[in-house]
């Protein structure tokens, strides 16, 4: 369990998350991709805190900020899904192409 292996696992999680966020049609599945991406970021932040930053308490703040971003993304994402479904009866990203050029 070295810093390199931890960051490698985090990189894999981020890569899978990017794939999921870009490939899924369902808006909720897209949010799951973003969550997986943030999961990898959290792992990288924890690894750097423990193995490269001398366990300084300030290092954990970055992870706490990432967790706050996760919570905000989830709450606002669910609210947007509800609002979009009420207005247009769609739950896929294809139904939301109003801004497509």
């Amino acid at each position: 369990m070295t810093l390199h292996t931890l960051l490698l696992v985090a990189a894999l999680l981020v890569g899978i998350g990017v794939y999921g966020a870009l490939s899924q049609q369902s808006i909720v599945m897209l949010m799951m991709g973003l969550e997986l991406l943030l999961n990898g970021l959290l792992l990288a932040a924890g690894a750097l805190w423990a193995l490269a930053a001398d366990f300084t308490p300030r290092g954990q703040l970055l992870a706490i900020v990432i967790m706050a971003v996760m919570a905000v993304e989830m709450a606002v994402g669910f609210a947007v899904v509800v609002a979009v479904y009420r207005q247009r009866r769609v739950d896929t990203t294809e139904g939301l192409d109003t801004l497509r050029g």
Partner: protein
Amino acid sequence: MTGADLAFWTLAAIAVITGWRVFRTDSMVRATFFLLTSFVAVGAILLLLAASYLGFALIFMMAVEMTVMALFMVMYMMNPAGLNPMNMIHQPGTAVAAGVGVGAVLAAVALWVPFPHSAAAVPPSDPIAALGHELLGGSMLVFESAGVTLLAAMIGSVVLSSRAGRYGAADEGSLPPGLEPGGEPAGRRPAPADGGHTHMHMGDGTGGHMDMAMDRGGGDGSGDHDHGGHAAPGEGPA
């Protein structure tokens, strides 16, 4: 290989494999629980790294969040239980290329960039107490900003998801009032989607149609009503 190494590799394999399975299963409810498993594995790795507060907070938060997500899957998705094989993927080539590219670049960074090495080999005696003093001491601004951000997100999500929209019930195709009295609605009108929900104005002549919030359009989804009757001549005392 020590016990900690064994635990780390096991948890890392669980995190990555279940993370991959999230997008490779037919059942969307199962996908949420795969994602929960991935989060729990990462939380356990954080526990191995002596970040006990973060690890437990992540596990608890994600247990609740993924349960809510499973509920959303049941409510909104057409195939939550995975009874039919399904493939709801678009732009697969771009997505695979972007995922592999990002993962490869970050993996190269992880493997070949010389990071600083930690001088302290052992964690502090009480990292949770140190974190608490940091949160309510020198870094209180960060902590409070996160709190206010969460509060704003709560208010925003309540506003966004409430049924009573600004110009009437959100699920009945409410439209903003016109720019001049009796004029066309100012907002973008929803395009008549296939089998979808289009707006129907009742045109009952009560009050001149200046206030579209009074509008109770057809929410029956029958899909063949257009936006007619609005400011029609000879209708109502407008």
